[in-house]
């Protein structure tokens, strides 16, 4: 759909969708734990703004509940839990060394192009206002995966995982105006439980290998090499 055919709210959906994609890139570039958590919180907040705007434009009022749920869980509660865990593990100021940072960013841009190519036939079949953002939501999923692949710190990997979930939720909103309410509620609480479990895992990993660098899980022997 051409931009000028949309009203201001419709254009607002596109702007906030683009900003969600931008936060994905910010997370990819951010090597410190604390700003990474903030970027994740911003992504959740922008996602809930997008959902609320979609609800406004399409008239599907159940999306307002999804938007509220997203804001409460993904912009406030889960980032707060991650932040508290990082504080308790004393890693909130840690800086991770990522090899080839600019290459990773370019790989992210290539992923966006790939998603556009893949989502093009889907968008051509769709008649929704949000059909152009399907590619962006897929890109959010793949960028979350890229974040998980390129990082070794457990917290960054969890954030990558959560950002994949953000992308999936976004894809559901963009392609079918959201999943049935019962599914959405279930997924939301699953994510919450996952966040709690990850917290326990952090402490377990730290207790057994004395580090949160999960590359060290590949070693079998207990001897220091």
């Amino acid at each position, binding site marked *: 759909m051409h931009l000028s055919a949309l009203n201001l709210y419709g254009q607002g959906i*596109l702007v906030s969708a*683009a900003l969600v994609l931008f936060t994905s890139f910010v997370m990819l*570039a951010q090597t410190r734990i604390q700003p990474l958590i903030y970027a994740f919180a911003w992504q959740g907040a922008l996602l809930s703004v997008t959902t609320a705007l979609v609800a406004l434009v399409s008239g599907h009022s159940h999306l307002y509940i999804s938007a509220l749920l997203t804001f409460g869980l993904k912009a406030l509660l889960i980032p707060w839990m991650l932040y508290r865990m990082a504080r308790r593990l004393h890693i909130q100021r840690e800086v991770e060394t990522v090899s080839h940072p*600019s290459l990773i*960013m370019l790989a992210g*841009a290539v992923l966006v192009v790939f998603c*556009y190519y893949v989502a093009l036939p889907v*968008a051509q079949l769709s008649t929704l206002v949000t059909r152009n953002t399907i590619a962006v939501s897929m890109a959010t999923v793949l960028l979350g995966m890229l974040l998980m692949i390129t990082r070794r710190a457990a917290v960054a990997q969890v954030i990558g995982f959560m950002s994949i979930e953000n992308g999936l939720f976004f894809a559901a909103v963009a392609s079918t105006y959201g999943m049935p309410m019962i599914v959405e509620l279930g997924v939301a609480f699953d994510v919450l439980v996952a966040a709690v479990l990850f917290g326990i895992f952090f402490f377990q990993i730290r207790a057994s290998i004395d580090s949160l660098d999960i590359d060290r899980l590949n070693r079998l022997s207990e001897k220091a090499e």
Partner: protein
Amino acid sequence: MVDNLNAWLDSALQTLLFIAGAPLLAGWIKRLKCHLQNRAAPSLFQPYRDLVKLFAKDVVLAEHASWLFRAAPYIVFGAMVLSAAVVPLVAVPLPASAIADVIVLAGFFALARFFQALAGMDIGTAFGGMGASREMTVASLAEPAMLMAVFTLTMTASTTNLSIAIRHILAAGLVLRPSFLFALLSLAMVTVAETGHIPVDNPATHLELTMLHEAMVLEYSARHLALMEWASMIKLMIYAVLISNIFLPWGIASRFTVAAITVGTLAVTAKLALLSVLLALWETVLAKMRLFRVPQFLGFAFLLALLGVLTHVILETAV
């Protein structure tokens, strides 16, 4: 024919206004920065006084300076004046922009930079060579980002002619374009890097390790130095006008009537004044980054510009 002549005359007047206004913008930014940093601020017209003083002085040339060193200030200044002639300041119809589009504008910048770097190396001092090498490093990273950001505009307006592109954006009215948001951020970062402002360069320090732009013009004096300084003020003005007139084109005159031009002048003055406040705030809040962090800074600018182009294709074109 008379109409055509009038348009060219107005265009020449606009360019003169551009060149004459550039030191005022530099003075305003300096004043704002002084106020923000609790220093006594110089007068708004201090850059004019500096230029007048420099033009009155005698030139001191290094023993080994070649013709290149003497010609470079004129070439740099000339390139900046020509680029100023291409950018619409108070009125959109600009016959010059039919001759030279945005890509030529980037070419003018590259030409000026090339001769500045040559002049920096001509004397053979260590500072000149170091400054030239650093300037070229920054420029080689900033230029693709700038071109990418500009391509976002040209893809939206389907033209590289600045006049027609700005008129197209004016005619569309208020449209929220995600691609323009990214292009704006990217162009702002490139502006900071290209005009020697704080996270990348700090021309005020005269400290060897931090010099980029200043190291190249260290050997210049009198009218040569005045031309170099004036050229860099015009460059800052060009970037500021590009940002304000592309992304917030409202108020710019679309016809050559007295009322429209008055409104246009007031509008562009207000926009530039506000933009300078943002720049001064940005320069006060941030610290200068290490030289080796600059590629990362400009890499992010390039990524933003690339995202601008991508979101234009993905979100804004008809599927």
